[in-house]
């Protein structure tokens, strides 16, 4: 108890450890696995990423030349990033933002 007492009183007078988050945005930590974007100039719609995705967050429609990516489905494991031969998937350090609706990120290309 005396230990607790001193601790409690000490933290009473010292500054709180709290980060005032929404007002003070922290610097993103490099190396964090975050949201992905497709560089449609490089992507060849090979569907490798779709195959490795554990949660079916990436859907590729080769005929329509379209990629649908759901950040609300994504596990942020970056297996797709590793599997992409074309280095077409660009990883971010921030995961998707909260939203009222589960909107898909849609990527289109005119190539091929």
């Amino acid at each position, binding site marked *: *108890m005396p230990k*607790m*007492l001193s601790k*409690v*009183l000490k*933290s*009473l007078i*010292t500054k*709180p*450890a*709290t980060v*005032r988050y929404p007002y003070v945005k922290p610097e993103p930590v490099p190396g964090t696995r975050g949201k992905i974007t497709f560089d449609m100039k490089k992507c060849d719609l090979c569907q490798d990423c779709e195959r490795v995705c554990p949660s079916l967050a990436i859907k590729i429609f080769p005929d329509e030349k379209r990629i649908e990516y759901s950040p609300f489905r994504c596990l942020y494991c970056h297996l797709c990033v590793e599997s992409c031969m074309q280095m077409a998937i660009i990883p971010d350090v921030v995961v998707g933002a909260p939203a009222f609706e589960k909107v898909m990120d849609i990527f289109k290309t005119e190539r091929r």
Partner: protein
Amino acid sequence: MPDPVLSYALPVLLLAAFPFIGGLLRGIDRKITAHMQSRIGPPVLQPFYDVIKLWGKKPFITSQFQPVLAFGYLGFSLMAAAILVFRLDLLLLLFTVATADVCLVAASFNSKSPYSHIGGMRELLSVLSYEPVMIMSIISIYFATRSFLVGGIFSLAYPLLLLLPGVFVAMGFVLIVEMKKSPFDISASMHAHQEIVRGVFTEFSGYTMAMVELGHWVKMMLILSIMAYFWAPNLLIGVGLALLLFFVSLVVDNIYPRLTWQRMLKTTWTFGFTLILANLVALFLLGGV
């Protein structure tokens, strides 16, 4: 002093202020607790937001009697406060507080919910643990003032604290139990999880919960006011004294874990009884009566 302002208007004003000061104190309580835990904590007005919000929620009740009983808790707490500010009988005040508690427990027993039943039972046990100490404190005040009326405190030559320091400390235990602070918060802690959900408060929601919360503030203020009376001629010092004990109870809340009911009973009874009896014996020996 038959001054109508002093004898009627002031008490009424004080009574009306009771819930507000109580809510403010609850806000300060949460702020200080947060700082003790190295947090920032909610705004000081947070308890008021909570109560207003609860009042506006869609009402869910367990039966038609529950709101009445919840209102009884608030009403009897206010009535006890009225007894204090109008300087009536202290024993009467005690009975009224007990009535308020029984209202709360009855309201929690009203639904067939295991959590609120256990909470209610534990609330009764905490009543069991503080009531004897409180009766003894009141009897001690009687020994000092030779009157059960609150007015007697004001006619003393010395402040009550100098005559009854032990009783003052014992009342500190009552305060902690009444505020439902750790280590005596078995019936329901004010927030966060515990093993019986919210204990005695589990089945309250919306406006019933708001009334219970208000009643809780009033009761906290009640005990603090009794403490303040320990330095009655100069109420300002008395208020300071009460606030000091309030702060001590917050510190205790933060450094002690919750006790079981057996331990709670043993602690409050042994410490309370010993302190008060030692104090009274000393009072008799020194011929202070």
